[in-house]
């Protein structure tokens, strides 16, 4: 599934719990260029709703996909500007 995105960087936040997945995602996105996609790998089940909410409320980012597999949640965020 994840092969459909051209991933520029992967952020591993497995084990981290709220608010760190969102906070670290923000930090990682800042280091990317416009158009690039960040893959976030988390184990916090709250990250599904939190990263969605963060992406909706934040300028310059777009959530393009989320996947659940086992205990791992993957989020794909594109930097738009």
């Amino acid at each position, binding site marked *: 599934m994840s092969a459909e995105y051209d991933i520029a960087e992967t952020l591993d936040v497995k084990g981290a719990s*709220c608010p760190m997945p969102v906070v670290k995602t923000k930090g990682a996105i800042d280091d990317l260029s416009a158009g690039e996609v960040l893959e976030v790998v988390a184990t916090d089940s709250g990250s599904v709703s939190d990263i969605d909410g963060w992406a909706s409320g934040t*300028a310059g980012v777009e959530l393009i996909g989320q996947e659940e597999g086992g205990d791992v949640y993957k989020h794909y965020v594109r930097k738009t500007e």
Partner: protein
Amino acid sequence: MSTDTSSPDGADAAADDAPTRAELAARVDELEEALGDVATGDDGKKMSIIATKGTLDMAYPPLILASTAAAFGYEVTVFHTFWGLDILHEERSENLQLSSVGNPNMPMPNAVAALPGMDRVTTRMMRKRIADNDTASIKELFETSLDMGVEFQACQMTIELMGYDEDDFYDGVTTGVGAATALQDMAEADIQLLV
């Protein structure tokens, strides 16, 4: 509204002054643009938090919300006063305690919880849970928030009231501020919270 019977001259003057359709359209565009800036204004979003509590459990909400708001692009100010100062206090922040009394959800009766040393026991239990759950420590959240541009302010009046010194606080903490500073931040903020 006008019940005046305007003179014919006045009416003519008003008609002459009336904006043209093109002028009105331009004005509407201008206003819509200004309104758009106000409505979206991502760069201008602000949050103001007043942190008044210094127990281990109550130290978390302001820091979690501050770091998360910073991730959303908010300009965040956290004004610490009374026991909230302990969160910014280099020495005391490492040793925040959880009270075992006054919380009926604690798994022990208050009569037992009030025994000497019980606060240490409940604090140790909570610290273990925090570590087991991989929840960030208070220090980690503070440092992360500071890195993200959150401004932490220590209320000058309560620094003196509590017998602290300005040098007791972490680097990067703003001192020499009072209620008027906090109020100004709150007046400008989109979100204001008292914790």
